[in-house]
Structures are given as structure tokens and as C-alpha cells.
């Protein structure tokens, strides 16, 4: 089948052999897998870093235990803040959950197959970032505003690279529909070695590092005021709110790792909603995400955090690579 035919079939719903019910179930499975798997990935990366640095480190399940502790704590609201501070973590989690539900992570075509556009996912991620940044500004403190400002700056520079990388993937698949891209890549395994995909992969990995706040862009374990980005922005969230923020961030990390895995190397993803396929899909997704976690954790161990004003150079490098990927894709098609 040609790419256009595959995606047209997806959009009209004829390509998905399973009904709506199983696909909704598969979407819920995806959300559950990412809600549990995201924090585990964070724990895994901390563990890998600890081991690489010669420490034993906390158990991999530590982030999950932290979450349980946080939601049981007292709710504290900052003095000058409005309802935005309470709403921001909820919007973050909700936007991440919807993005996870419609992305091809465990199964190629979860719910909303035709409308699961890559740009929808990108802008849902933006929605979470905007909510967090507004939450950072809401209490009217120096730290929150500084964190929001830095996070929006990095976000503004990372987004173009992400959008253009997606475009590079879309050219060959002739669609920006996520299930369409994954299905078309499964049908043409040779695409995985295409030069434009490799270029886009590098750009996307840089963006993922920036969006998830890892070294060399941000340091998730620092609480030193001058270098904080993300941690400064969420300083005023406490208890259950902080738990939601942590969960939302972990889900975004899981989603981004999963998308990188499946858009570039879609092996093992379930093509229908039967139980064995889904089980295999979850397992393969976990394995691929763990592999990406290993790579990123190793990058983290081996590099120093960049000065804030060197980060734009890194991100504009990613943008240039992404544009190059689109150009390569257009020339070689």
C-alpha cells in the first residue's frame, strides 16, 4: 500500500480491524502504562546515573513512592496566588493524559486514529507547559517568575525544532497523522535508515532532553537557585499539587520517549487490540523506552550542564538539523 492509501484508510477507519471499544480500552491501557512507566523511567535514569557515578542510588520505584507520599500530604496554597496555581497541575496531567491516549505507543491506532495528528500532540504538550508557566507566575515570587521565563524561553526555542522534525517524518508518509506515520514505517522498514530520519532523530533527542529538563539543559536534581529552571517554576506547588506536577512531568517524559521509539523504530507495536498483541506492545514499549532512558542517562552523566545562554545554541543546532532533514527528505523523495 502507498503511504497515502494507508493513512486514508486510517482516517476513514477502515484500516483498524478492531472496533471502538477495544481501542478505547487500549488507550486507557496506554495512559495507565505511561502513568506508571513514566515515574519508573525517571527512577531508572536516576539509578543509572547513580551507578555510573559509583553510588548505589535509590530504588527504581522511588518516584512512585514519592508520589504516594506527596498526594497524602497537606494542601498548602501560596498567599497571593489565584486559582491558576491549583488548576495548572491538573491541566498538565490532563493534557499529558490526552496526548498519551491518542499517540501510537502500545497500539498503532488507539482511540481517535484519524484525528491523532502529530501537531495536536505537540500543542497538547505546549498546553501543559503554558499551564505550568502561568502557575509559576501566579504566586508572584521571584523564583517562580524566573523559572517560568526560562522555561518559556527554552520551550520557544525547542518547539520549532520539534515541529520541523515531525515535518521531516511526515514528508515520506505524506501525512502528519501519527498512526499514519507509524503504519507507513512498519510497511516500509527500509525508511528507518533514511538519512532524513537520522537527522530528525538527533534533533528530536535534543528537544526531548530540553523538554524533559535533563542535563545539559536543566538539572532535575538541583535546587541551587541560580541554575534552576523547572524546579524554580514549580517551587510553590506543595503536597498533592506537587504530586500532580511530578506525575505530569513523568508522563510527558514517558510519552516523548515512547514517541521517539515508535516514530523512528516502530518494531513490536501492536497492530490490533487483541490481548497478546497488547501485552507484547507494552513489553516492547517498556524495553525501548528503557533503552532511550539509558542513552539519555549516559548523556547526562558524561556532560556538564550548559550555561543558560549556551542552551539556545544547542537548540538552534537542533532546529538547523531538522530543517536539513526536511531538505534531505525533499531532495531524496
Amino acid at each position, binding site marked *: 500500500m502507498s503511504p497515502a492509501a494507508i493513512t486514508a484508510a486510517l482516517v476513514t477507519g477502515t484500516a483498524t480491524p478492531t472496533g471502538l471499544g477495544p481501542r478505547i480500552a487500549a488507550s486507557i491501557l496506554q495512559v495507565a502504562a505511561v502513568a506508571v512507566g513514566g515515574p519508573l523511567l525517571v527512577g531508572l535514569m536516576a539509578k543509572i546515573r547513580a551507578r555510573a557515578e559509583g553510588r548505589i542510588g535509590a530504588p527504581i520505584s522511588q518516584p512512585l513512592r514519592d508520589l504516594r507520599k506527596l498526594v497524602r500530604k497537606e494542601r498548602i496554597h501560596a498567599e497571593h496566588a489565584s486559582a491558576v496555581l491549583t488548576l495548572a497541575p491538573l491541566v498538565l496531567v490532563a493534557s499529558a493524559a490526552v496526548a498519551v491516549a491518542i499517540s501510537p505507543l502500545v497500539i498503532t491506532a488507539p482511540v481517535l486514529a484519524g484525528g491523532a495528528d502529530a501537531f495536536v500532540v505537540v500543542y497538547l504538550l*505546549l498546553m501543559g507547559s503554558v499551564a505550568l508557566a502561568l502557575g509559576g507566575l501566579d504566586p508572584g515570587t521571584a523564583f517562580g517568575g524566573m523559572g517560568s521565563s526560562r522555561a518559556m524561553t527554552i520551550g*520557544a526555542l525547542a518547539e520549532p525544532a520539534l515541529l520541523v522534525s515531525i515535518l521531516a517524518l511526515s514528508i515520506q508518509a505524506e501525512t502528519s497523522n501519527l498512526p499514519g506515520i507509524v503504519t507507513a514505517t512498519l510497511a516500509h522498514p527500509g525508511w528507518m535508515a533514511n538519512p532524513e530520519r537520522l537527522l530528525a532523530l538527533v534533533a528530536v533527542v535534543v528537544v526531548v532532553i530540553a523538554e524533559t529538563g535533563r542535563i545539559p539543559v536543566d538539572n532535575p536534581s538541583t535546587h541551587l537557585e541560580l541554575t534552576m529552571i523547572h524546579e524554580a517554576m514549580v517551587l510553590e506547588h506543595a503536597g498533592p499539587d506537587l504530586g500532580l506536577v511530578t506525575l505530569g512531568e513523568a508522563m510527558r517524559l514517558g510519552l516523548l520517549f515512547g514517541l521517539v521509539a515508535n516514530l523512528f523504530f516502530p518494531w513490536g507495536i501492536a497492530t490490533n487490540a487483541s490481548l497478546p498483541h497488547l501485552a507484547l506492545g507494552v513489553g516492547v514499549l517498556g524495553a525501548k523506552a528503557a533503552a532511550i532512558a539509558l542513552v539519555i542517562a549516559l548523556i547526562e552523566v558524561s556532560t556538564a550542564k550548559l550555561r543558560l545562554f549556551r542552551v539556545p545554541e544547542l537548540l538552534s543546532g537542533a532546529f538547523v538539523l531538522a530543517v536539513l532533514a526536511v531538505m534531505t527528505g525533499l531532495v531524496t523523495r
Partner: protein
Amino acid sequence: MSEAAYLIGLGAAGAAALLGATLPARRRVLGAALLSSAACVCAFLAAGQVLVSGHAWSAHSAEVLPLTGVSLSLDPLSALFVAAAAVVGLAASCYAIGYAAHSAPSRTATAMLPAFLGSLLLVPAASSVATFMVAWELMALTSLLLLLNEHRQRKEARDAAQWYAAMTHVGAAAILLGLLLLATHAGGQTFAAIAAHRGQLSVALRSAVFVLTLVGFASKAGAVPLHVWLPRAHPEAPSPVSALMSGAMVNLGIYGIIRVGEDLLGGGVLWWWLAVVALGVVSAVFGALHAAASADVKRLLAYSTVDNIGLILVGVGAAGALAVSGERLLAALALLAALFHLVNHALFKGCLFLGAGALQHATGTRDLDRLGGLARRMPVTAALFGIGALSISALPGFNGFASEWLLLESLLHGFADHTDATVVALLIGVAALAITGGLTAAAFVKALGVGFLGQPRTAGAASAREVAPSMLVGMALLAASCIALGIAPGVLLPVLERATASGLAVRPPSPLRAGLGLDLAGVSGAIEPALVVAGLLGALVLAWALVRLSARRSALRHARTAEAWGCGRELQTARMEVTATSFAEPLQRVFVDVLRPDHDLEVTHVAESRFFPQAISYQHRIDDGLERVLYRPVIDAVSAWGRLARRVPNGSVHRYLAFGFVALVLILVVLA
């Protein structure tokens, strides 16, 4: 039916202007506002009928305008622009009632607002060169008078009016020249006659006409580098006028480009449209950068208009280029995306400008660095401004997302075109679109977060109160449309398709399938915002419920309010918050080569020792770099020429007689 409603609407606008000029001070605002609201409703109904039925009408009257007569016609393309202007006009008219209670507008200002509104409804319907130019000039003059409204109080208003007058009249002269050239060679001045004879015109002549009119229309639309009047005029105009200027007037520049380029000149040559894409790309990036760096909320909005006009121009240019290579479906898709974004921009920018007016109204300033904490003091304004800000940031569920997505898709699928130049232009267009996305979000997080959240930074902001209900109703109308079109963008589809079809020189196939969401036909791509919004709301409630269920009983009862963390400091004051300027500082530092900020640090020391500073003053401003580079030399040259010319008349009667004599001799020589 549509024709009658339209004419009644125009009449009502005229009557409103008359009432505003004649009624006593206490009643004129309400009278004019009610009549101009009625005018907008009539015009909207008239345009709506044309858009829904697809039947265009035209009318001619020889009596109204001597020598040429007045020709009006409403086809779906015109009707779309009339409808957009009418919606923004209705909101602005309603808003003006409450706004006037505070600012006490003069008789001229009250009369000019409906007149301006009437001209905005008139321009798209004009169907001959003479009618078009008269309406265009009426629009320029009424808006100029409105801009001068507060010239006594503020020098900046005078300055802005001068810039606006110069730019708009240079533009009008270019359009006039272009259209006259066209009319003389096409053997008729009605648009229908010109379109019928376009085949006989040489490419060189058509190109000359296109370039001349493009200069004029781009200066009205605010495309870089002809945008310089925009960041001056929008902040200085009264807020209902800024909303109309940004929501309706700049659109007419786009209208002119489509009408002349596609309808009158028949699509023309590839390089025209590549030039339009280039204008769009430069405008989008330049506007977005300046918006991200501005601390004045209305200046920010004005630059964001430059940005959005840039995106619309990218769509229009892509449509033109694709149509030239014969890709009719893709051309229709690109033009539809551009028109959709134009409608959406009118709605959210109108809402944002009205919101900015409410801010200014309540606090006395539009400097974000002096605001803050307004979400608690004026919650409705904050919510409505928030909806506008989220819409323009293109978050899913708001209308900006639907049209930006469509624009991205049209460029992506446009890559199928086989002309290399077009593909390169589309690639650059996509890159520009991608760059502006994140910057726009940063700019509006700043406007919303610094302006409305946090602690108030000045006494003015601390004592702000919610504005009058009529102002809120005006904003709410636009905000509600933003949400409605965001959730169900498909409802506008048939209307946009008709406007697109009448905007392209060749009749295109339908680019989208009908439905509540957007579903591309012929190429693959779809979004279903309604389902995404439903999912978002569901997930939100679920997350909230899960947190509540897993919490301890004692923690549930109420959230304790505590002081924010101040690094061990006891007191958190508003002076410690980030300001809009400091929020934008990282971005400004990244793009320092484009923005070129001016810093001025002055330290005065105490007399005894220079180690003890007495006062430190720091000034920071970002001027428009292009204005400095492109316009300063021209202005300087003109002023120098003016000074030189002033030396010629020195008061001596002998010299004047000599001038007369020499001139007479020269004329005789030329005639002989």
C-alpha cells in the same frame, strides 16, 4: 434580501455617525453605539446570506458619486470580510458604551467610530476602482481622526497619527496608481470589466500593477517593512478603535491582495506569490520576536498582529504559487487556511485589544511592568483576556489551533508541488510558522501571567476594579466565538469554502470533508478538537477526583494558606516579582541581533566619594530596528530637503517676481 439588509446596514452606520455628531453629549454615545450595533447586525446578516447561499449580488447607482457612479457587489469572498468586520464591529460598538463613561470622547470621536465602521463594511463590497478608492480613503481618514482623539493629552498620539497618515497615504497612492494603470488598459473601471479583459494585458503591465497594489495593501496590512505605523497607532488609538483596526482594517490589506492578484489579474506569475510568501515570512518572525520582547501590552498586541498577518500572507502566497503550478486542490487548501486564520485572528485579536483597553481603563496604564494581581480584582476581564491569549497561542480547543494546524497541513501537503521555487518557499514558510509558535506562546504567557497574576506592582493596579458590563459583553461575544470555532471548526467550513472558491482565479475542488472537526479531502490529515476537548475535561475531572480520593481525610477539609518561599526572607514584596521586561530578558538576549535593545545606565555618586552611589538610573528600550535602518535616512533626507527649500522664499518680493518670470519663460520654452 441580502442587498437590502446590506444597504440598511450602511445607512444605519451613516445615521449613527450623524447622531454622534448632533446629539447632546449625554445621549450621543448610547445613540451612536446602538445604531452602529444595528448596522453590524444588518451587515452580518447580509454577508451571512451570501456566504450560506453562495449567490452574489451587485448594484450600481449613477447618482451617488458624480462622473463614475457607485458600484457595489457582494460575492462570498467580500462577504467573508464584511462578516468578520461586522462581528468585531458589533463587539466594539457594545464595548464603546462602557468605555465612553470613562474617557468622555469628543463629538468628533463619537461620530467617527460608526463612520469608520461603515467604511470597513464598504471597502470589501466596492466593485469599481472609483468606489473602492473612495471607500479606502474614507477608511483612512476616519481612522486617522480617531487616532488623533487624544492628541491634546499625549504627544505620542500626534506622532503616531503622523506616521499613520504618511504610511497609509503612500500606500493609497500606490494602490491608486496601480488600479488606474489597470483600468486604463483594461478599458473599464468596474472590477467585472477589468476581470473580463485581463487576458489582453501584457505580463509586464500586470506585474507592475501587482507590485504597486501589493505595496499599498501590504502597508495597510502591516507587513514588514511597511509595518512601522502599527506599533505606534494601535497603542495610541482608543481601544475599540484598536480592536477594529487590528481585527478588521488590516484584513482589508489581505483582501486587496487576493482581489487584485487572483480575481482582477487572474493569478499571474509565480514570482508575485513567492514575494508574498517572503513578505509573510519576514513579518511573522519579526512580529513574533518583537511581541515576545514588548512590555507595553498594546504594543505587544500590535506586533502580534504583524506576526499573524505574516502567517496569513504565507498562506495567501502559498495558495497563489500552488495555483500557478496548477495544484488547484492544494491552492484551495492553503487559501482556505489563510482565510480561516484571518477570521480567527479578527476574533481573538479583537478580544485581546478590548481586554487591553479594559486593563488601561481600570489601572490607568498599559505598561505590564506596572500591573499584576488583576485576576483577583477583575476576574471576568482576566478570564476573557485569557481565552484570547490561549487562542492566539494556538492551544488545542481554541480557534487559533484549528487554523494554524490547517496552515501547517496546507504547507506540508504543498510539498507535493513540482516547482522547486515553490517547495523552497513552502519550506521557509513552515520554518517561520514553527518559529513563531513558541515565541507567541511566550509573549502571551507574559501578558497573561505578568499582567493578571501575581501581586499588584503599583497602587493603580492594586485599586483596579471590574469594568462596566457593556465592555464585558463586547469581549465575551468575541471570546465565545473563539471557543466555539475552536471546538467545532467544521461549522465554518462551507462558508470558508465558498469564500475560497470565489477568491481563486480557477474554481477549485472542495479541500475538506464536512464535519464538526477538520478532515482534509484528497490528502490525508484530520483533527477532531471536540473529542480532544472532551478528553481534556474528562481527564481533568478524573485527575482531580483521584487526588481527592487518595488524600488523607484531614488534608481534604481545606487548603492552608501560607506565605510563599522567599529564600528565607520574611517579606515578599511586589518589587521582587519578575516584570514583563525581565520575563522577556532571556529571549531578548538570545535574539539580541534582531531586537537591538538600548541600555542606558547612569550612576551618580555622592560628592565625597565615588565609591558610594547616590542614585542609579537604568533605562531600557527596544526600538524598531527596521524603522531606524530604513525610515530614518528617508525622513532625514526629506527634512534636509525641506530645510533647503525653506531658504528659497526669503520674503523678498523681487525674488518671487523673478520666480514667476522664470517659470513663465520655462513654460513658453517647453510649449514651443
